[in-house]
């Protein structure tokens, strides 16, 4: 059985910012917008473009839908470059163009056990998912992060969720985290569904162990996007059959055995099935 949410048809709106809050530092920003009328599936995303950008930056920016309530649509943004820096300086009352919901979300059976793996901002799509999930006790959550844990909205997650977080400061930390990932994926394989979101190096590790232990894993990719609607072919991921498919419309959520993140894994058996 699939999740019963109907993602509906996307639309392009100009939405007002209700509030902006900062978490931990000025580099972690929660943006609350007037809520659009569509429903969404966790893992889907929106493209946004503040009114003031005119021609520079030319592209919008993609963000996961963090949470949507009757009152607001919420995005969780980390400042990493020029675009996100400009976004973090927006004020309540400013408007932005926003289109979505875009792409395919995480499809899973709400009765099933879930292992959620998130790296850094990969936590964003899981905020709404976990808060709305009918059986939070079915969820295990493993979170790897670089900055102080206060920067991330972990405290909002329902207490029924079995959650662990690991801070990565040194190379040893990173290796340690990879070890934990391996154990978790190995132990969980065959017992439910794994959902993963985070930076590409993190996803590569998740993919590698998912293939190795034949886990049922969905990963959400972060590729550069220009249009977000499947038109420009700029955001493609390579499938195991060698084709390039749009991350924005065929993803961003893919089966772990469907796309090639690391050419070296192509030889791995699990890929071939």
């Amino acid at each position, binding site marked *: 059985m699939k999740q019963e949410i109907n993602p509906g*048809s*996307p*639309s*392009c709106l100009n939405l007002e910012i209700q509030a902006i809050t900062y978490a931990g530092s000025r580099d972690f920003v929660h943006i609350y917008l007037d809520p659009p009328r569509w429903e969404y599936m966790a893992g889907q995303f929106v493209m946004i*473009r503040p009114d003031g950008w005119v*021609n*520079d*930056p*030319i*592209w*919008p920016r993609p963000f996961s839908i963090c949470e949507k309530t009757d009152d607001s649509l919420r995005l969780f943004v980390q400042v990493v470059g020029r675009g996100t820096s400009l976004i973090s300086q927006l004020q309540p009352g400013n408007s932005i*163009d926003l*289109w979505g919901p875009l792409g395919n979300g995480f499809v899973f059976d709400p009765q099933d056990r879930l292992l959620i793996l998130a790296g850094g901002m990969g936590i964003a799509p899981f905020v709404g998912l976990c808060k709305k999930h009918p059986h939070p006790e079915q969820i295990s959550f493993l979170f790897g992060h670089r900055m102080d844990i206060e920067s991330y909205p972990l405290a909002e997650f329902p207490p029924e969720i079995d959650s662990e977080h690991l801070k990565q400061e040194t190379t040893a930390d990173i290796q340690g985290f990879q070890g934990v990932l391996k154990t978790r994926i190995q132990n969980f394989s065959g017992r439910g569904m794994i959902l993963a979101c985070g930076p590409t190096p993190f996803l590569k590790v998740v993919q590698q162990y998912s293939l190795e232990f034949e886990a049922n894993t969905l990963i959400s990719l972060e*590729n*550069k996007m*220009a*249009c*977000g*609607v*499947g*038109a*420009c*072919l*700029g*955001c*493609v*991921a*390579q499938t195991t059959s*060698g*084709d*390039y498919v749009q991350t924005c*419309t065929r993803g961003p959520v893919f089966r772990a055995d469907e796309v090639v993140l690391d050419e070296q894994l192509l030889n791995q058996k699990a890929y071939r099935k």
Partner: protein
Amino acid sequence: MDLSVNLGALKLKNPIMTASGTFGYGLEFTPYGRLEDLGAIVVKGLSLKPRRGNPMPRIAETPCGMLNAIGLQNIGVEKFLREKLPLLPWKQTPIVVNLYAQSAQEFADLAEALNSETGVGALEVNISCPNVRQGGLQFGQDPDAAARVVEMVKKNAAQKPVIVKLSPNVADIKVIAKAVESAGADIISLINTLGGMAVDIQTRKPCLANVFGGLSGPAIKPVALKMVYEACRTVNIPVIGLGGITRAQDILEFILVGARAVQVGTANFIRPDKVFSLVEELKEKVREMDIDSWDEFRGSIIA
């Protein structure tokens, strides 16, 4: 004012077309506007056989513009005709097929395959793609090679208006414009992208796997306007202007220097409903400026 324009046999309800490669196969945009409101839809460059395109990364953002090196990934002309064209509103709005091939013969074969397709309003021959090893610029920079392609396409597509899309990566646009006109082109469109490059000083790698890419967007509008102006003063066939259009004002600028219609490319990434709202904005602007007819305004630049 009636916004419609005729480019020879190609009739548009307004001068706003989409630019190839920036509007997919059109259907991607149905959530954002009514395709039948557009002057014409130019679809992604199609080749005889499907093409995978270039490896990633394929796009990079630049000041007021972008680079792309998609490498003409497409589903092939056959699949397009079978799966996409029937879903497009070709009765209300001309669908223009942008053609890519690696040899003059292949261009001719493509033309033949499309000549009898009722749903295809015109062919746009892309002799100007900077992102493929073969076929693109080798025609667009050489007047003789360009003329040969045009002649062969014309011979095999007698029923369709043939648009030839020119490259700005030339010393003198007038030479190539003249050459394709003489070879029988019905319409020319320009400009395609300018050759460009971006690099990442941290990784020491080019930002595009293909190393080079094509520059588009507002950054190139001044280059486009000049070349369109020069082309309009050189040929007698209709000219379609494009390059960096994001506003109704930009559209009027191209028409002022002589373009009969325009194409909107990179602006489709600014907002997916951009090209639809441009139709409205253009109506408004034409009213505001008291423009009575395209014939009076077009090419009326005082220079």
